[in-house]
């Protein structure tokens, strides 16, 4: 289309010159040649210009044909039939690209997991603080409950013991030495057994982090309980030494199981502190998956790197 427009707007003199060139070069049809020759016969200037161009053309055609300085044939050793490319040469660019891709993916996944892991660690710190606060509150409540219950039980049992001691004081007739020995023998083992039992029970019920707290609490409760009945018995005792020994024995045998029961009952009665929901909802499964992905990508990257280096050495 542009060619048509250019031809259309071309001046007549230029069109005539182009026709003259075509006449010289034998590019005109017979009709065009006849028309141009008729036009040429009436124009002397055009004839002169045609003669000049014909001379130039002939001079150009008479330019010597240049001999080639050498043969331009291709070397068989360099450009010969291309041998089949070895596998290492074919595989090297592919492996190199795959290695780069694996490295990029590994860095991306690693960076993403680092970012996500940082966010999860901050959440875990906040959750652990809340968890410790809730544990402290639960331990304090448990200690208060245990102390109140032990006080109530000790008071009621002390009253009962004092009444029984008063009623049975007259019929007992034994030597004070026997009674004291018996009292010592009877008093110590149950205490030891009771303390062991209480420790064992507490250890089974309480979480490891709270073991010390519950042990202290149980010990305090035990001391208070073991002291208060004895004091009540001593205050209420008005009889002989035999009576006192008997009372001590009875008190000891009764108090220790009570203390044990109370001490063991307190942690059981107190609901164990449930782990905060934040910790349970922490993305621990995702983290493990991410770590597996990272390890897999790292192994893949190392494998591809090894293969790439190997193929590069093979391909030279």
């Amino acid at each position: 289309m542009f060619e048509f427009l250019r031809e259309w707007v071309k001046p007549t003199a230029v069109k005539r010159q182009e026709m003259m060139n075509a006449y010289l070069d034998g590019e005109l049809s017979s009709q065009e040649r006849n028309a141009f020759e008729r036009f040429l016969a009436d124009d002397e200037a055009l004839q002169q210009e045609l003669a000049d161009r014909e001379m130039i053309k002939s001079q150009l055609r008479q330019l010597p044909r240049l001999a080639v300085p050498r043969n331009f044939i291709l070397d068989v050793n360099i450009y010969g039939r291309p041998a089949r490319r070895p596998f290492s040469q074919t595989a090297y660019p592919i492996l190199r690209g795959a290695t780069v891709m694996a490295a990029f993916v590994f860095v991306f996944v690693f960076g993403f997991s680092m970012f996500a892991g940082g966010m999860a660690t901050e959440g875990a710190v906040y959750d652990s603080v809340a968890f410790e606060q809730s544990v402290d509150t639960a331990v304090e409540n448990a200690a208060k409950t245990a102390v109140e219950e032990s006080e109530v039980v000790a008071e009621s049992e002390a009253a009962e013991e004092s009444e029984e001691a008063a009623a049975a004081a007259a019929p007992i007739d034994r030597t004070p030495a026997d009674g004291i020995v018996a009292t010592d023998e009877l008093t110590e083992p149950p205490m030891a057994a009771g303390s062991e039992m209480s420790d064992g029970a507490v250890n089974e019920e309480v979480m490891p982090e709270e073991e010390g707290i519950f042990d202290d609490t149980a010990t305090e409760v035990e001391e208070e309980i073991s002291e208060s009945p004895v004091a009540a018995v001593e205050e209420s005792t008005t009889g002989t030494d035999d009576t006192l020994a008997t009372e001590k024995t009875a008190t000891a045998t009764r108090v220790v199981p009570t203390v044990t029961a109370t001490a063991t009952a307190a942690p059981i009665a107190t609901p164990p502190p449930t782990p905060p929901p934040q910790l349970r909802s922490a993305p621990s499964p995702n983290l493990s998956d991410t770590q597996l992905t990272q390890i897999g990508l790292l192994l893949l990257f190392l494998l591809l790197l090894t293969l790439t280096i190997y193929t590069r050495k093979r391909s030279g």
Partner: protein
Amino acid sequence: MDETTLIQKAKQGDIAAYNQLVLTYQQDVYNVTHRIMGVPQTAEDITQETFIAAYKALNQFRGGNFKAWLLRIGTNRCYDALRRYKRRPQTSLDEITEQNESPAFLESKADTPEKQQERTDMENAIVVCLDDLPDDQRIVTVLSDVEEYSYKEIAEIISVSLGTVKSRLNRARAKLRDCLQRFRELLPSRYRL
């Protein structure tokens, strides 16, 4: 063995068959590049590059005029080289020495020394005027008047329309006429325009 068979064998990697084609067309390619570039060493380099490039691109040849296809590659290389030389013009010392020490009359033994000198002067004038032409007009002139290709073949080689070939050739001949008139006093009477 005909050209088509040689081309098919060369496509299959037969370098001997391709070298047969090289031997057939190397003078055409070298002459065109030499007339376009005007420097023998550059023409030699471009000719070699042309045959190497053609061998590498042989699978892209879909038939037709193989010589025109080769010359298209050669002229494209010439365009690239001319663009480079325009940025960094350079003249080889070897080329100057070669031109001064190898006059045409020493090579030809057909004419008398006087006639050889006249022809040499005219050739030098033609070459000078040809070199003064713009690159696109010089290429068309070389292909048409030196190598005697048809307008259609020239349009195919340099990948332009037929009208562009006509207009470039017309402007080139007009400029050559003007240029050679400057050498009127130097040329013998039979060469004067």
